[in-house]
């Protein structure tokens, strides 16, 4: 049997270390556990580097000297969690390799077993699905193959294969990896290290099965959700077909199928994509799939509590979605949704319990009516404005039981005041003031102030009649008739009047109301 000597071990370590250096960035990209700071590869490399320097400081006479140097160097240079674990593996290996002139493959495999066991002991709470699991899988497989008489190369190759399979399973063991759609970074680091070392055994370059490395997706929000495949009949060739194609997206694939051209693309705007190709020929077939939906379905379990909000305006819809609303029912002032509209939304929400924010006093009643018409538990929060809904949803703890949540929401709403700025549709008298049709009016509870000049003036007159404490958050949602520039200058004006308040502006995109302003 071949004995492995000091030169083997030096060579083995060097090639492993260099392989980690080469693929450092791949490892970094995956890093989500325990802390997603993207430095696993860097840390591991620095740990190995320190070992390599230690080997170079001495003139090793035997395996023992090399192993000692690796262990000492890594211990002193260990960075980060995976580096610390690697150093413990080397330390454990050194227990077996110490005092050895040269070693048998069996002793080599035993040293790895000892190393892994040392690493498990060193970590206060070992977590499976990490470098620990992958290294154990390697060590075990390696040792067992050697035990049944396989030669070094074969046993090592099997161990690599098994470790690779284990690595692929890490997302099943550690949910955070699954959520991020990655395998464990430390585990990959270990595998890469071992793959490098394989070249010392085979003494040649080895083609390895590639582990697909995808950057960790911490939030599964797809930039280009639509997967579009279209078949087009055109006189153009593939190259000219996409000559001036410049739509945002990725994964463009073009292929010829008999006399048709097939195009595949991921985009956020499939209508534009289709428009583009319509001009180039006639479309035979178009297939659009929303991948976001699949992603959501995969990760979406039935929720305990779902949220429905009645709202108008694209800006508001966007904000509400971000704030955690599951379904939005189109509607508001002069455009009240029917009970059926709300009921449909209730059925669409994947939740046992549903909280509805009507956001308008005229909608509250239809919302309440749905309670009788569904098997789900429905609770209606009598919100009279959209900001009440937005603030509630951003501030509550969504893991609370529904009853506690409702209490908390009611408390939040108490502290929110909303002013709505619109145009009077008729002549009227209010609290002694004469309001003409076409006047700008700002409404707060039962107080109305008007201005002939501008919606901003009406708002300011009303605000000045409200007690606003320092530190109050004033949020301005501007409507579809106001552009961003005008809204910004309104904000600046308010900042001068209320220098000690926080003022925020967002596009609500709502019709009828120039501004909806909340104070909280």
């Amino acid at each position: 049997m071949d004995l492995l000597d000091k030169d083997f071990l030096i060579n083995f370590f060097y090639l492993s270390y260099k392989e980690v250096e080469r693929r450092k960035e791949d490892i970094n990209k995956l890093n989500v556990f325990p802390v997603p700071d993207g430095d696993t590869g860097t840390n591991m490399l620095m740990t190995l580097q320190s070992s390599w320097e230690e080997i170079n400081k001495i003139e090793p006479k035997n395996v023992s000297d090399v192993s000692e140097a690796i262990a000492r160097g890594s211990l002193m240079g260990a960075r980060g969690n995976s580096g610390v674990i690697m150093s413990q593996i080397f330390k454990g290996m050194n227990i077996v390799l110490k005092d050895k002139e040269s070693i048998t493959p069996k002793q080599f495999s035993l040293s790895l077993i000892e190393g892994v066991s040392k690493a498990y002991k060193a970590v206060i709470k070992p977590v499976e699905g990490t470098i620990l699991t992958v290294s154990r899988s390697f060590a075990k497989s390696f040792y067992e193959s050697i035990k049944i008489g396989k030669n070094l190369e074969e046993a090592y190759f099997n161990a690599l294969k098994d470790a690779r399979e284990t690595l692929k399973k890490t997302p099943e063991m550690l949910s955070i990896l699954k959520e991020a759609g990655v395998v464990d970074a430390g585990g990959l680091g270990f595998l890469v290290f071992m793959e490098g070392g394989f070249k010392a055994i085979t003494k040649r370059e080895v083609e390895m099965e590639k582990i697909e490395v995808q950057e960790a997706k911490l939030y599964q929000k797809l930039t280009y959700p639509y997967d579009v495949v279209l078949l087009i009949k055109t006189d153009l060739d593939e190259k000219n077909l996409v000559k001036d194609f410049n739509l945002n997206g990725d994964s463009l694939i073009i292929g010829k199928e008999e006399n048709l051209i097939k195009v595949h693309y991921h985009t956020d705007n499939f209508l534009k994509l289709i428009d583009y190709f319509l001009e180039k020929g006639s479309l035979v077939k178009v297939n659009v799939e929303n991948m976001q939906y699949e992603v959501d379905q995969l990760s979406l379990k039935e929720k305990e509590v779902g949220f429905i909000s009645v709202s108008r305006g694209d800006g508001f819809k966007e904000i509400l979605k971000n704030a955690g609303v599951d379904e939005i029912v189109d509607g508001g002032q002069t455009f009240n949704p029917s009970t059926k509209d709300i009921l449909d939304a209730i059925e669409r929400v994947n939740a046992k319990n549903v909280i509805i924010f009507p956001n308008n006093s005229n909608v509250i009643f239809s919302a309440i009516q749905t309670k009788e018409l569904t098997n789900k538990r429905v609770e209606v929060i009598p919100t009279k404005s959209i900001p009440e809904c937005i603030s509630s949803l951003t501030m509550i703890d969504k893991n609370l039981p529904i009853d506690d949540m409702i209490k908390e929401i009611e408390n939040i709403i108490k502290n929110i005041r909303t002013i709505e700025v619109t145009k009077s549709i008729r002549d009227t008298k209010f609290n002694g003031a004469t309001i003409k049709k076409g006047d700008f009016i700002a409404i707060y509870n039962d107080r109305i102030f008007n201005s002939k000049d501008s919606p901003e003036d009406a708002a300011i007159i009303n605000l000045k009649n409200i007690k606003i404490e320092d530190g109050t958050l004033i949020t301005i949602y501007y409507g579809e008739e106001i552009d961003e520039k005008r809204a910004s200058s309104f904000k600046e004006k308010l900042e001068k009047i209320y220098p000690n308040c926080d003022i925020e502006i967002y596009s609500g995109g709502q019709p009828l109301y120039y501004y909806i302003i909340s104070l909280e």
Partner: protein
Amino acid sequence: MIKIVVDSSCDLPDEYIKEKDIKVIPLYLKVGDKFYKDGVDIKSDEFVELLKKEKNLSTSQPPLPDFIKTYKDILEKGDDILSIHITGKGSGTFNSSKMAKEEMNTDKIDVLDSENISIGYGFIVKNVINLIEKGLTKKDVISKFKSLLSRVHLVFTLNTLQYVYKGGRVNDVKGLILNILDIKPILHMKEGLPRIYKIIRGRGNSIRELSRIVNEKIKDVKENFELAFIHLDAKKEIDELKDNLLSKLQPKYHFTKTVGSALGVHAGPGALGVAINFLEE
């Protein structure tokens, strides 16, 4: 004699550290592949500037040799060691200090997990020192240690979510919406990790809420407590909060300090907070 060893994240005032002869092991600040010793190579005022400028700034636990060297120096003088560290759930520092102890194979070193951060951790160290000064043995201090942890409350608020997202150490902020709606979470320590205590909209509101929370926690205690005010690049606001709180509360001792880099890297500029230390009778 019992010597206290801490890491640089404890945020105790420099004078106090000097007076009590506490040994500080610096954490490392990492910029790309370069490392700097926290508080040694980079002072706290330089840190804020660096944080604003440098996108790839992170902290790293001290390497084993730093622990070993500090421990060796102390042991050579014949002293015993209590090494108290930033929460083990949030940092590898505690684990490393345990390894260093194991490496040195001595029972003269004891390693304790503060389960807290910044001055929350600092107050726990201070309480340990009080016990030692009262004449308790190391063994007694260690057996009392767990009960000290619940005496310290740290609450703080952030002005931007950018850093806490990037740092990835506060799990439950993942559910928050980045940089819209002016969200200012209030965080506290729970089971050794920073967690969201409450979500508030608006900076003014979050500082008012912080003040309310502190008042409520102290409500019935008349005198036996201390306060620490910490901030990162928010001097004016922390002073206002302090004046406001001190007009109603009479702590036995209080101080204001800039947040060290360990918390600062994750909290970002504008972070401010209060730690309450309920003293023993």
